[in-house]
């Protein structure tokens, strides 16, 4: 099949058929003041040789540091088979195909992905994926406003324990559509969102409450109490979850008495390398009763005219090619390649493998926190259970300490000063199953030396 869509002769024939002089004429209704004349700041094109060299140089800048950085993107072991299979020509496309049903293999793969994600989250239906965890969270807020028809306020309660980037993306994507995001404070002793912080909203019309589990600090929120509080007041619950953690933690479909209404998250931990920050993929799930308000593509299993099993895009009346301006979202694709990798990763790991990965990450993170807090000038910020990240408080500013560690080839974590200045010098650290005891000891010894040097100076 040729993928060169239109020759100049094709275009001329089509324009002649509809009586238009040029393609530009079709866009005349867009006022000239709104048109972009040329793209500023876009460099000239590079050929394959040049771009290959540029990318190699950029990749080399990353080096191979020992990383204890988490904060939304996590280093996990990826079995070699994952990307060996994903990069086969049959799968190697970033896109959902346009003539979708001609690509049964791709559709089946997406269907299997949806099934795995729905089971992992304990929810009834999943879509074919979103761009990333942050945009999936914003789409979930927009979806909640459509789905919660009893609420008129378009008011979304967002704990400050939700990833700061997710909060910023949600505001950027949805505030111009009339949504109001109100931030809930956290308990500075425990690092979680206390149910008491919700009480001032008890009599208000709240459309949805967002709950991240584990939260940005790696702490476990009291998801049952928060979910039941929201449902008792007619608010929907949007769960933002780490897929690896779900192998151990209660899935959002079982939170509280009725479960979350929408569950989203960042899919990167499932077989996607860190790659300097992307591309990653988001996932989104919901209950069957809300499926028509869900954005994105959904693949269904069906029978063809001859009674044979087949796969098809379904519930498309939600989407913009049918619903135009009233579509549930302008997302009309999925992260096909990354979802392929995630599906293969989940298949290879299985429920048991994912559970071992989660348990090992949790154990490593505990060992790390225990080792580091034995150092003078380092203590834990919060009491209570964590998944695989925790916040440490230092007796001096974090940024210079991280700089000194980086010089020793260690990414020591995230400085929380720009996001949570009220904590004082605070460092978010993560350890997954990829870290050996020797790695943890190297970090402990290096941090001890760096702190001691700083103290002496």
């Amino acid at each position, binding site marked *: 099949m040729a993928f060169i869509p239109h020759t100049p002769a094709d275009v001329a024939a089509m324009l002649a058929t509809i009586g238009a002089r040029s393609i530009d004429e079709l866009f005349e209704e867009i006022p000239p003041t709104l048109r972009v004349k040329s793209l500023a700041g876009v460099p000239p094109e590079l050929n394959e040789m040049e771009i290959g060299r540029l990318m190699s140089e950029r990749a080399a800048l990353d080096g191979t540091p020992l990383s204890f950085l988490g904060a939304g993107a996590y280093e996990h072991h990826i079995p070699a088979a994952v990307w060996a299979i994903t990069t086969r020509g049959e799968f190697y496309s970033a896109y959902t195909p346009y003539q979708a049903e001609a690509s049964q293999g791709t559709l089946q793969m997406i269907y299997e992905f949806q099934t795995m994600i729905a089971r992992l989250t304990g929810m009834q239906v999943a879509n074919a994926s979103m761009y990333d965890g942050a945009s999936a969270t914003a789409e979930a807020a927009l979806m909640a406003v459509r789905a919660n*028809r*009893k609420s008129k306020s378009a008011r979304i309660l967002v704990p400050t324990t939700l990833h700061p980037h997710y909060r910023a993306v949600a505001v950027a994507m949805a505030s111009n559509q009339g949504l109001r995001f109100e931030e809930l404070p956290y308990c500075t002793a425990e690092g979680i969102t206390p149910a008491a912080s919700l009480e001032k909203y008890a009599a208000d019309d709240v459309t949805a409450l967002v709950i991240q589990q584990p939260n940005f600090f790696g702490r476990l929120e009291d998801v049952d109490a928060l979910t039941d509080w929201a449902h008792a007041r007619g608010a929907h619950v949007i769960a933002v979850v780490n897929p690896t953690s779900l192998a151990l933690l209660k899935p959002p479909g079982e939170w509280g008495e009725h479960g979350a209404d929408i569950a989203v998250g960042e899919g990167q931990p499932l077989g996607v390398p860190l790659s300097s920050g992307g591309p990653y993929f988001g996932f989104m799930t919901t209950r069957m009763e809300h499926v*028509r308000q869900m954005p994105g593509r959904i693949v269904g299993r069906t029978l063809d005219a001859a009674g044979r099993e087949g796969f098809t895009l379904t519930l498309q*009346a939600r989407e913009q090619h*049918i*619903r135009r301006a*009233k579509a549930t979202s302008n997302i009309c694709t999925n992260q096909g390649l990354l979802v392929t990798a995630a599906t293969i990763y989940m298949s290879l790991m299985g429920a048991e493998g994912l559970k071992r990965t989660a348990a090992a990450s949790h154990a490593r993170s505990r060992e790390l926190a225990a080792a580091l807090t034995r150092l003078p000038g380092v203590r834990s910020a919060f009491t209570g259970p964590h998944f695989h990240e925790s916040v440490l408080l230092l007796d001096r500013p974090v940024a210079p300490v991280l700089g000194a560690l980086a010089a020793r080839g260690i990414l020591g974590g995230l400085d929380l000063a720009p996001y949570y200045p009220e904590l004082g010098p605070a460092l978010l650290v993560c350890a997954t199953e990829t870290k050996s005891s020797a790695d943890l000891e190297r970090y402990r010894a290096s941090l001890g030396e760096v702190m001691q040097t700083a103290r002496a100076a």
Partner: protein
Amino acid sequence: MSNVPAELRYTRSHEWVRTLTDGTVEIGITDHAQHALGDLVFVEVPEAGRTVASGEACAVVESVKAASDVYAPFGGEVTAGNPKLADAPETVNSDPYGEGWLMRLKPAAGAIAAAGLLSAADYTKVQDAEGG
């Protein structure tokens, strides 16, 4: 030729209107409209208590091939959305002028008279002009 009951009034966008004894009105889509849409798989009706303006999209009918908005023929307050359609959207296909009603409205004062509703005969002409 589709069924156009003489006792109802119509809009150019293929809604029908029936005035009930209590002064509220029942609204649905015509036989012509349900036939053009094909088998309905989903119907979204407005919540009771919602105030709608004339011409406002207030319900959605979705078939296997398209999704269409249904417009309020005049302004008023919704007194009921048909609760049966959530589980049985095909009722709109089988009984568009009866059990398949979409919503009931309490019209704003003078709203019906200002709406320019069509008689059955005039609505039939609209259909004919559309090739229906």
